């Protein structure tokens, strides 16, 4: 059934609306992210936190365990080295990307952690990246207390 549309002479029919959402905001870090980013900026240290219940080491640090919901306790310094759990190659541009595509994005299990840490892989041909590959953080010289205080992870071998 077709709609009976009385369409007066005018421009071409409206088929879409253009939308634009743009806002700046301040994200309050809270005590856990604040210490996490401070350690990265000031000391080039990646900190995790240990669960008081099941003992897993979580990164980024958080007040409650994501596995057993027990409170977390001791802060643990993690290595800035680890191994690639999985990775993908990003070709498509989209808003908010840390670098221009193409780039390799990976889940990295840092030594001493029980959950992965997502970051970019650099200094390696994309075809040579493998699951299990050992990588190490390349720290930025100008650190601002964000995830980009690490420019990327690069293979150690």
């Amino acid at each position, binding site marked *: 059934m077709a709609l009976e549309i009385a369409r007066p002479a*005018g421009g071409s029919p409206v088929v*879409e609306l253009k939308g634009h959402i743009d806002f700046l905001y301040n994200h309050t870090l809270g005590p856990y992210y604040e210490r996490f980013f401070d350690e990265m900026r000031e000391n080039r240290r990646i900190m995790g936190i240990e669960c008081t219940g099941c003992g897993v080491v979580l990164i980024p640090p958080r007040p409650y365990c994501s596995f057993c919901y027990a409170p977390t306790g001791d802060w643990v310094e993690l290595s800035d080295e680890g191994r690639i759990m999985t990775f993908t190659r990003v070709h498509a541009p989209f808003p908010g990307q840390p670098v221009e595509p193409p780039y390799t994005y990976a889940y990295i299990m840092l030594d001493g952690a029980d959950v992965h840490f997502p970051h970019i892989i650099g200094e390696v041909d994309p075809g040579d990246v493998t699951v299990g590959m050992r990588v190490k953080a390349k720290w930025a010289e100008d650190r601002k207390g964000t995830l980009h205080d690490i420019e990327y992870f690069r293979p150690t071998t």
Partner: protein
Amino acid sequence: MSETREQRSNVRYRWATGETVGAFFSALRDSGRLLGSVCPECGVVACPPASYCERCGAGATELREVGPSGVVMTVARQCEGFTGAPLEAPFLYLLIKMAGADTTLLHVAKDDERVIPGTVVVPEYAADRSGTIMDIAYFRPEED
């Protein structure tokens, strides 16, 4: 106090109106007329129009002109301005039942103590119409 980080969300998008809402905005832009959809099963006239009747689910087969006046059904006063606000705050959000329609249209009015449920309002059109709901700048009391 905890540290903060400045962040930004910036997204552009295009929303496909579909046939029914496209016809609604085309008519608004080209002639300033408001269209409602007529349900062939239960007879409900919806404005803004819908491809399917919100009461009985039947597919709409006809669009019909409604308004130009409408009755204010409910009012909310927006006291604070915000990015992308349709009017300078304070202003009013209205649900308006257009003449000949059975459902309500969300729009705005300037802050006005006379605008209460039951007030008859008419559209004040934008100077330039481009086929969006803001082709009506706001509604104002008919008595003005």
